[in-house]
């Protein structure tokens, strides 16, 4: 068991190291890597739900909740601090995850996906139409927050937020791994393969899924708060269904079987977008669509799966 996970953990360590060091040489990478890490945190939440065999096509709602928490604070209270934002984003997304979760964990598969989508679209329409409070489609600007009372120049801030994202990502990655190895995490996976048996062991599958769902909402919220600080804006588009689709896309791209897939997928997604947007103007979406098709048709286990498939053929099973 330990022998199987180690190479991936090593890959994760290298990835985190690169994210810490590479932007020191190319300053435009600071924001790129910060985005990769922040989105990776959100996608970790999707990967969690995939363990239970569930796909949420509305998870961007928690991403939006996290982002708007920071935005509303700046707008109605004023000022703001990175730590404060993260704490508030975590609280608001966890609470909303619990509320929505209490309803959606009663459903599975397409119904689970549909209900999540419905909830997220309700949030989106409110953000879009409550113009006096949200500025509608224009969104709310998020002023550069301080850190524990210290303010920073834009140049320093982009590195600061990079390292904050990195720390958050590492903590989330470690936490999710531990969770997945814990009894509750194994029960989450058990929902995918045999929920009936789980109930017949005396465990409430709904409660197991609810825990997973709330953790996943929490991760979505933190990621949203980070992205709002990185991009210094929160818009309704953060909670639109295409955003949810994008997160699921990244999870499948990386491979839903392992937590590191979230970051591998996010790295590939954001890099393609970053470079395609720079060199091929308006066709990055097209390119990503083609990449997704190729991955689904030829490597359905994602980037992580590619490596595992290679290993399996090399070891001849077991």
């Amino acid at each position, binding site marked *: 068991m330990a022998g199987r996970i180690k190479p991936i953990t090593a890959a994760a360590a290298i990835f985190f190291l690169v994210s810490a060091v590479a932007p020191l040489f190319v300053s435009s990478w600071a924001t790129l890597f910060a985005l990769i890490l922040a989105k990776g945190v959100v996608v970790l939440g999707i990967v969690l739900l*995939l363990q239970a065999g569930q*796909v949420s*096509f509305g998870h961007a709602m928690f991403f939006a909740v996290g982002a708007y928490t920071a935005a509303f604070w700046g707008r109605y209270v004023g000022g703001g601090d990175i730590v404060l934002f993260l704490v508030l984003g975590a609280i608001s997304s966890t609470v909303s995850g619990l509320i929505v979760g209490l*309803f959606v964990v*009663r*459903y599975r*598969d*397409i*119904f689970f*996906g*549909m*209900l999540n*989508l*419905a*909830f997220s*679209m*309700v949030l989106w*329409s*409110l953000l*879009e*139409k*409550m*113009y006096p409070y949200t500025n509608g489609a224009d969104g709310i600007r998020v002023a550069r927050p301080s850190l524990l009372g210290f303010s920073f120049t834009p140049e320093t801030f982009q590195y600061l937020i990079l390292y904050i994202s990195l720390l958050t990502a590492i903590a989330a990655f470690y936490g999710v791994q531990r969770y997945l190895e814990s009894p509750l995490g194994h029960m989450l996976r058990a929902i995918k393969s045999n929920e*009936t048996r789980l109930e017949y062991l005396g465990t409430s599958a709904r409660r197991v899924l609810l825990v997973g769902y709330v953790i996943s909402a929490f991760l979505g919220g933190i990621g949203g708060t980070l992205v709002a600080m990185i991009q210094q804006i929160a818009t309704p588009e953060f909670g*639109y*269904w*295409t955003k949810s*689709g994008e997160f*699921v*896309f990244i999870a*499948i791209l990386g491979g839903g079987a392992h937590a590191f897939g979230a970051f591998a997928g996010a790295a590939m997604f954001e890099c393609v977008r970053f470079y395609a947007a720079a060199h091929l103007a*308006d*066709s990055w*979406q*097209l390119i*990503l*669509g*083609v990449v*997704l*098709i190729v991955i*689904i*048709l030829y490597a*359905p286990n994602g980037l992580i799966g590619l490596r595992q498939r290679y290993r399996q053929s090399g070891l001849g099973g077991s």
Partner: protein
Amino acid sequence: MNSTLAILAVLDGISYAALVFLVSVGLSLIFGVLRVVNVAHGSLYAFGAYLAATLSLRVAPVSPWLTYPALLLASIVIGAVCGGVIERFLLRPLYGRDDVLQLLITFAAFMIMDNLQRMIWGVQPIFAADPLKLLPNVTVFGVTYTSYQVILLPAVALATLFGLRYFLRRTLSGAVILAVTEDREAATAIGIDARRVYFVTFIIGASLAALGGALASPTTSLVPGMGADMIVLSFAVAATAGLGQIEGTALTALLIGLTRAFVIYLHPEFEVLVPYLLMVLVLLVRPLGLFGAVQVRKI
């Protein structure tokens, strides 16, 4: 709200419901047979609309009456070509694989089509109202409205509803589709080619989405993002009705269309909220939708 506004709202609701029904029933039909939620459905709608507008603008100078066949042609071309390609090359390799992958590959198709749409037709709004202006206005209880919207659109929707019913319940091809829907293995065992059924069904569903778009094109300006909005809306209607329920989809479209129209006159800011709120409420009470039926798992 006075009676004139109320009648106006009812007429708005009906014409809107007719369009939404066409798109939703296509989505529902595809799900009913293939068990795939076609995320690219909204793009087929948008492509239908754009191609219809392009063709209309081209033929209108010759004779404005040619715009009607243009609308029809656009929906069939988009349904057959785009729908055919999606089913044949994207979905077919994935039958029997994880549902998530099938859903996601149509998401990929959506991304590509959304991008292509902007490359082909640009981001400036396109407007081609000839078919709308060609038909006379009608007066209903003192309210004047275009007959295109209150007569033609509902008529096409009703024709589609009864046509589909007839096709599925009274023709051999329809019986074959229903057989595959109910039990694919048994249907295959008696010699039905399920892949062909899937292909044909997908093209019919895709054509209905494109037809919805084509018919909508004279009534609204075409903008990027219309496809993304339509897929969730039609999905909300189909899910609220119960996926795979054809008559239910018609009633739900009407319900959502009318509610939305009244909300627009009373509280315009809640317009977009209506279908999704309705969907949440219905799914919480009846997860299989208003008209869906339950199945119990055997252990």
